[in-house]
């Protein structure tokens, strides 16, 4: 964490708390990722909170901060969810927030919680996120109303006429440009999916644990050309929890933990569609700028990383991110880096050891926190079956829109 020294030169003897605490992750939990929910979203939030505190060895009464995310896409009116959850869990807190911003939702929740710990306002902050996709297919009228108006609510009164509420066509066109500009083939996209499914086969909580083949990926139905079904992230339900405290407190626990080393962010004035003529649809400047800030503030670079979890929701997106986050040598070389084995066990670093969004699964709002849990497992040496040997530095990346905004976080293993 970037340290801000509080230097009081006023000459008075007022005691000023030093806002420069370093932030530690001491409790983690991830649910298995499934297509459909197996319990209500409220119960999911509670079960995650309980498991996270148990992992940390912390009592509920010791928690003094709660940051949550909204309870998925829901047919009911949901406001004041933080207050509801605080009551449901029986937690009195000094800080209570609900954070939402599309795919970056729980990355920003983690950041809000980390800020409060760093500023010394709370001592033990619980971050909890779960997501589910409400299905309304059995209510035709509601589906039509939602389908017609949600697009306009989500994409605006102009683009919303053309583009469905689901962003697949937008990512498909970004992928089409990438393949066109850098001569990337469908086979290379399929090889990436095979690689990610292999990673997911090592994770007992992944949605797709069965390996696949290039033929199977290319033969799956076209969603939006050039994307086939298996090149897209699935619809998922799941969630994660993290407990934060200070590094000073964490050291008293006498076991390995994870330090949050830096946050970087960048949110361009675009949402989903590439409107400005100067904006590139194949180089994600939010990922470049956010990762640069995160690397600079932690004092590390991509070559120092051992493991990363990144937000590649479609196959071409994942390849572009390898390039923009600094894991592949240059633009257009993402597929080559995969083929050379540089981004898996035994390579330069392991990217998406869970299988990533395409194979591990993608409960969108909770995805960034699931990434954080995986990195914390890797850095404390508890990623059974997929452990990156001697992992010391990790990174997570989350985005919203069509990579219009990115949040990048770096982490260091602490003994």
């Amino acid at each position, binding site marked *: 964490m970037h340290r801000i020294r509080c230097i009081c030169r006023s000459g008075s003897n007022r005691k000023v708390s030093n806002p420069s605490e370093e932030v530690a992750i001491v409790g983690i939990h991830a649910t298995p990722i499934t297509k459909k929910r197996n319990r209500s979203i409220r119960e999911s939030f509670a079960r995650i909170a309980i498991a996270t505190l148990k992992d940390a060895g912390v009592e509920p009464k010791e928690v003094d901060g709660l940051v949550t995310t909204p309870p998925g896409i829901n047919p009911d009116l949901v406001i004041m969810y933080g207050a509801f959850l605080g009551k449901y869990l029986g937690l009195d807190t000094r800080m209570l927030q609900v954070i939402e911003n599309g795919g970056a939702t729980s990355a920003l929740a983690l950041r809000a919680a980390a800020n409060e710990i760093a500023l010394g306002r709370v001592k033990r902050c619980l971050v909890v996120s779960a997501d589910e996709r409400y299905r309304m297919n059995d209510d035709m009228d509601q589906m039509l109303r939602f389908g017609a*108006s949600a697009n306009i609510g989500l994409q605006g*009164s102009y683009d919303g006429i053309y583009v469905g509420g689901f962003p697949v066509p937008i990512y498909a066109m970004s992928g089409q440009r990438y393949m066109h500009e850098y001569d990337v083939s469908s086979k290379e996209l399929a090889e990436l999916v095979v690689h990610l499914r292999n990673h997911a086969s090592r994770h007992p909580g992944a949605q797709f644990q069965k390996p696949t083949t290039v033929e199977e990926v290319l033969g799956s139905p076209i969603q939006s050309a050039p994307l086939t079904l298996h090149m897209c992230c699935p619809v998922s339900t799941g969630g994660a929890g993290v407990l934060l405290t200070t590094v000073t407190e964490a050291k008293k626990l006498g076991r390995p933990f994870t330090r949050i080393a830096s946050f970087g962010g960048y949110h361009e004035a675009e949402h989903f569609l*590439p409107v400005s003529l100067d904006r590139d649809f194949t180089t994600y400047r939010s990922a470049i700028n956010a990762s640069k800030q995160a690397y600079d503030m932690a004092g590390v670079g991509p070559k120092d990383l051992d493991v990363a979890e990144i937000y590649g929701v479609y196959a071409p997106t994942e390849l572009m991110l390898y390039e923009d986050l600094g894991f592949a040598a240059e633009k257009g070389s993402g597929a080559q880096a995969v083929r050379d084995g540089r981004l898996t066990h035994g390579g330069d670093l392991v990217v998406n050891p869970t299988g990533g969004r395409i194979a591990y699964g993608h409960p969108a709002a909770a995805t960034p926190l699931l990434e954080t849990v995986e990195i914390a497992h890797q850095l404390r040496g508890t990623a059974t079956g997929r452990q990156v040997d001697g992992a010391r530095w990790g990174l997570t990346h989350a985005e919203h829109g069509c990579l219009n905004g990115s949040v990048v976080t770096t982490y260091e293993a602490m003994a």
Partner: protein
Amino acid sequence: MKEQIDAYTKRAIDHHDDGATGEYYRLLRETKKFHTTKCPKCEHTAYPPRPFCPACFHDEVDWVDISGEATLYAFTTQSRALRFVAPDVIGIVEVPGVGRIATKINAKLSDLKIGQKVRFEPFEVSDELVVHSYTPVG
């Protein structure tokens, strides 16, 4: 079903009208031309149109006609076609001096090529709603 979708679409557009939306759709319906807003102070042309300038925050705008030719930047189909008949071909077109705009493309997917010229064409969704679309030139 089409009538319901059209009614819900109209209702959503009216509900989200920021002062520019109503005028934008009125101009499309009545003049069959594609207009957007331009700042009289800094000359920035904005799409989507706004009742203010997003480049300098000037709070008044002019309407300009941007109908005409554009270049096809990207295109695809949507499996979840809702408003247009499947296969629903959509694309992003580069409108000179304005930006890259999502639109309906009046062609078969297999006939399209990145970089080809396309021309604005009004598309009547219903009596009340006319939207922009683009058709390959020649």
